């Protein structure tokens, strides 16, 4: 770049951000003071950059903080049972993230190739056992989610405000596990599972962030959302697929159902 050469658009960007080396910077400054065309181009760039500075900030829902806290709290507070072990320990979180890939993979494999059995599956391997444990966990998660959905769907919106205290607690517990499953499914490229868990998570967030007494209109809105998304049906389908996968794994391990 010399003072006689025009500055490219990219040169101007580097100049704008002060990313040119000192010699190039001096040349650019000198050129801009002498060249009307480049100067105009630089002013246009500056105007665009100034406009970008005023970029809109995305709108955030009024209940944003409450929702964030509802999702976050289960991962922070002391817990009991397998879920607490699953959620609290950073080491176990790492392990969970790694092996949950197997769950998603196993789910996918089970769904896509329901009658396929590995030839060398006569003996249970460590990974099969681990996969089996995880399938049990995922299955339990889906069963508990189903129970909650059934309660919500069957609640009577014409009665007095629904007491959601218990459901709120359950939803809070389910959230942390659901989030892990969803992230893992996403990372494993299992779009269908990821989308289902995302829909489920949004509902769990809503329930866990709801007041103790849910007004009738809010309940109706939740019920409509469950119906519109076919959420209960989808959870049942996935739950069935997971159970089927568990059966396959059991047959594979014991040799039942395999040709000799």
């Amino acid at each position, binding site marked *: 770049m010399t003072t006689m050469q025009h500055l490219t658009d990219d040169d101007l*960007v580097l100049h704008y951000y002060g*990313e040119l080396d000192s010699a190039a910077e001096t040349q650019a400054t000198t050129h801009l003071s002498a060249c009307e065309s480049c100067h105009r181009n630089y002013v*246009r760039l500056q105007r665009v950059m100034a*406009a970008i500075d005023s970029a809109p900030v*995305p709108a955030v829902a009024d209940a944003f903080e409450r929702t964030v806290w509802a999702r976050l709290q289960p991962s922070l507070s002391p817990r009991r049972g397998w879920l607490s072990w699953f959620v609290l320990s950073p080491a176990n979180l790492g392990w969970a993230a790694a092996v949950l890939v197997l769950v998603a993979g196993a789910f996918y494999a089970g769904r896509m190739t329901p009658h396929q059995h590995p030839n060398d599956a006569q003996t249970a391997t460590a990974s099969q056992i681990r996969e089996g444990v995880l399938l049990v966990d995922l299955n339990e998660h889906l069963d508990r989610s189903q129970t909650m959905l059934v309660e919500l769907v069957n609640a009577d919106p014409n009665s007095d405000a629904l007491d959601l205290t218990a459901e709120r607690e359950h939803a809070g517990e389910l959230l942390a596990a659901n989030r892990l499953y969803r992230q893992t499914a996403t990372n494993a490229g299992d779009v269908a599972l990821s989308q289902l868990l995302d829909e489920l998570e949004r509902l769990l967030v809503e329930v866990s962030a709801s007041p103790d007494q849910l007004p009738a209109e809010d309940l109706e809105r939740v019920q409509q959302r469950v119906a519109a998304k076919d959420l209960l049906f989808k959870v049942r389908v996935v739950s069935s697929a997971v159970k089927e996968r568990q059966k396959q794994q059991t047959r594979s391990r014991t040799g039942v159902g395999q040709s000799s």
Partner: protein
Amino acid sequence: MPQTDAAAVALARDGDSEAFRALVERHGRAVYRLAYRMTGSAQDAEDVVQETFLKAYRQLPRFESRANFGTWLHRIAVNCSIDLIRARPHRETGQADSDLEQFGAAVESTDATGASPERLMLSTEVQHRIGEAMTKLSRMERAAFMLRHFEGRSIEEISQSLGLKTNATKHSIFRAVRKMRTALEPFVADA
């Protein structure tokens, strides 16, 4: 609710979850805005918010009490955003320049009011167009550009953060600026 961040941090360190909740309530929106700018996705931004506060909670014992909590949290949020972008590179949203040219032309055709660029800059319509233009950037272009433009990171630092070569980072930024200029210059052209 503790009056200051320092007081809330001290209580949260001792296991007071309500104190940590106060920190979430004070800083949650700022973290979301940053994450949204970085990722360009509401869902990803929500994930970043969760991850940021989880990391902050776990790292509270290591937080220097003399430091500014907001600044520290901001740094964690940037890193969480980068981690997410690197972990999900497949979710590209970038669009061809031809789309942007059409977009720019459409903007130009709507700008027949004769209003000055300064006035237009202030309008919500312009802000809407900027938001639209941002969505035309690919994830890497967006991340590199946001880190350079809003976070003031050098190209060298951005390269390290995103795991890109310096030239690749430069070109991501160049492409991002080019796209933004294509979309926005009709608004900001000389009066």
